[in-house]
């Protein structure tokens, strides 16, 4: 069985640009959550989606947005990139948004 798939694996962007990160959850899982992990820190919650509806948002600016599609895949968009947005972006897949979060390998975003 395929695990959580994230793309791209690495990305380099310039300040002020926009970026879209993608996540495909485990087959049958209906919930996707996004986390940002800065080097040396634990992951920090950005969004949770369940059945295509936003179920929660962390303490991130409006430059961060996300959506979940009918096939349960998800995109995270970040506008007007700042140097401080450089991080590992992780997607977590869950059957129902409560039990058992499986993480993908992440997208390493570098803003220069």
């Amino acid at each position: 069985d395929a695990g959580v798939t994230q793309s791209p694996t690495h990305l380099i962007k310039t300040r002020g640009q926009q970026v879209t990160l993608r996540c495909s959850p485990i087959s049958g899982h209906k919930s996707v959550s996004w986390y940002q992990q800065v080097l040396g820190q634990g992951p920090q919650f950005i969004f949770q989606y369940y059945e295509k509806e936003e179920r929660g948002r962390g303490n991130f600016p409006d430059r961060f947005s996300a959506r979940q599609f009918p096939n349960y895949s998800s995109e995270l968009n970040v506008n007007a990139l700042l140097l401080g947005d450089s991080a590992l972006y992780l997607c977590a897949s869950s059957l129902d948004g409560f039990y058992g979060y499986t993480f993908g390998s992440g997208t390493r975003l570098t803003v220069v």
Partner: protein
Amino acid sequence: EDQVTQSPEALRLQEGESSSLNCSYTVSGLRGLFWYRQDPGKGPEFLFTLYSAGEEKEKERLKATLTKKESFLHITAPKPEDSATYLCAVQGKILTGGGNKLTFGTGTQLKVEL
């Protein structure tokens, strides 16, 4: 606000030298305490979920325990392949939206040497 504190920040062990990692937490309405292992440049790998004080779970050389204020990850006779960062997280309810989120600690970086 939910908070998780892990100690020590880093731990160096000799192969076979058992030890424990600590995770202290505060959360309004615990919906599970999670332990993950993370290798450099990879996503966290699930180890255990504990839901109530007194609960214990084991997997190979690892054993996780939970009290009302903290959790311990005991590592018995570790091997070099156990070297990784171990993350603790608590699941709490998101007040607006009704979802759930994990709040992570900063992790314990474990190095096991021959």
